């Protein structure tokens, strides 16, 4: 039941892309931490954004979870690089399901990856808004989302 992984899941599991961490206090870095250890899945996904262009320059992940969760987050970081924030928000869990041929019992892994992307971008936007407020004493341009949605 559990061992019927697709080749792509195995590939990402054996050669995960972009494992690691970005400095989470950097204002150009957004961090999303989703899932819960009790449920067997925690994903940390980070994006580093070029504030001038709004393009994601780098993405990193760390995941506690099954092979499909690792593969979903690895794939997500691969897809995020080079995308604008708006493009990144268009990544949907079904895209991940299709790309990795995830079975129904593993769909939640893709949902978690989508949540992690959203949380990371929300965290980046919040930081930017705060930075802008701090520097210009102006109003925040974008709504401040909450990072680490749902963790623990």
């Amino acid at each position, binding site marked *: 039941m*559990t*061992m019927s992984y697709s080749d792509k899941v195995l590939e990402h599991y054996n050669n*995960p892309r972009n494992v690691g961490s970005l400095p989470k206090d950097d204002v150009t870095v957004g961090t999303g*931490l989703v899932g819960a*250890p009790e449920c067997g899945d925690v994903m940390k996904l980070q994006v580093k954004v070029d504030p001038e262009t709004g393009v994601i320059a780098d993405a990193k992940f760390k995941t*506690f*979870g*099954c*092979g499909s969760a690792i593969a979903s987050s690895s794939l997500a970081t691969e897809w995020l690089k080079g995308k604008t924030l708006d493009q990144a928000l268009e990544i949907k869990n079904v895209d991940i399901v299709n790309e990795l041929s995830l079975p129904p019992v593993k769909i939640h892994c893709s949902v978690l990856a989508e949540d992690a992307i959203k949380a990371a971008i929300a965290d980046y936007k919040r930081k930017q808004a705060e930075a802008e407020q701090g520097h210009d004493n102006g109003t925040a341009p974008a709504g401040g989302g909450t990072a680490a949605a749902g963790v623990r």
Partner: protein
Amino acid sequence: MNLPIYMDCHATTPVDPRVLEAMLPYFRERFGNAASRNHSFGWQAEEAVEAARKQVAALIGATAREIIFTSGATESDNLAIKGAARMYREKGDHIITVVTEHKAVLDTCKHLQKEGFQVTYLPVGRDGLVDLDQLRDAITPKTTLISVMAANNEIGVVQPIAEIGRIARERGVLFHTDAVQAAGKIPFDVEAMNVDMASLSAHKMYGPKGVGALYVRRKNPRVLLEPIIDGGGHERGMRSGTLNVPGIVGMGKASEIAAAEMAEESVRVAGLRDRLLAGLRGGLDEIYVNGSMEHRLPGNLNVSFAYVEGESLLMGISDVAVSSGSACTSATLEPSYVLRALGVGDELAHSSIRFGLGRFNTEEEVDYVAGKMVQVVTRLREMSPLYELAREKASGRAAT
């Protein structure tokens, strides 16, 4: 050394070549039905079954007539618990069992609850053992049956069967034990332990799948069971159905080998298990053994590798056959109920791996598995946000 390595002996064991040899004639020329009374084919089959019955009985200190052959231990558990509960319903309707029992026992008890029986599910301590005082307190005048497994299939913890047997006998309550994991691995004697019924399985002790047995005491006290399968009245009327002669012959041979080699084998297998644990501890910190190490089957090791999820671990050691208590590996998508019952947190339950060592494992295999585990756990921890958080916390504490 051949790959993949099999280290999942609680799930099943390979058939011992000596067992297979003993079985083969009963698929070929000696194919008779043991219930055929009028020709040599039947007599030959019956003779083989009776010889096997003696071999199985000898393994557990019983007499041959007390052995009922079944299709496996799930059937044996069903027959023992449903059979005794229904047979003695007029005496009482209360059953006592334990939360860490195999599903074959737990689901049978749940079924009986639907028929109106009362069931007490005793908790276990952190070490996986039942508390004998709690057991004593749970017995009521309505209690007819206590069912406690001899050794657990996930954590290998061995319950105090002799003490439970003594309590049950004193209180006049029947005592059934699921001895599937214990029989042939550790000393198990129905007389010395006051066991009234015991479930056995051939394929957990290097015999074939599809055959098991139920020991049913014939005197002091004589145990009667209401059958759950009706038919031709085989097996003293307790289990109708044509006997699986080759399987029974295999179970007999497997029992004979186990009885002869247990003393030596259990020391050797425990040595392998301890070597595995030492290898894991040598290469990794924050690993936790689940359940008592003292009261444990020689071949069992159940370990949680903190910060790493079990299924991803299994993926990393795909040339080693082991099991995990992770939700992702279970049909129910829940982490192991046995580990939960011990008070192991869900996070560590997700991180658990069960190693089941047995007769055919070697030191070379153990060293390979330990090395591979260390390598994979280390790699996955580098990938784990929980490990990173724990390290940050630890260094934060060190800095302040």
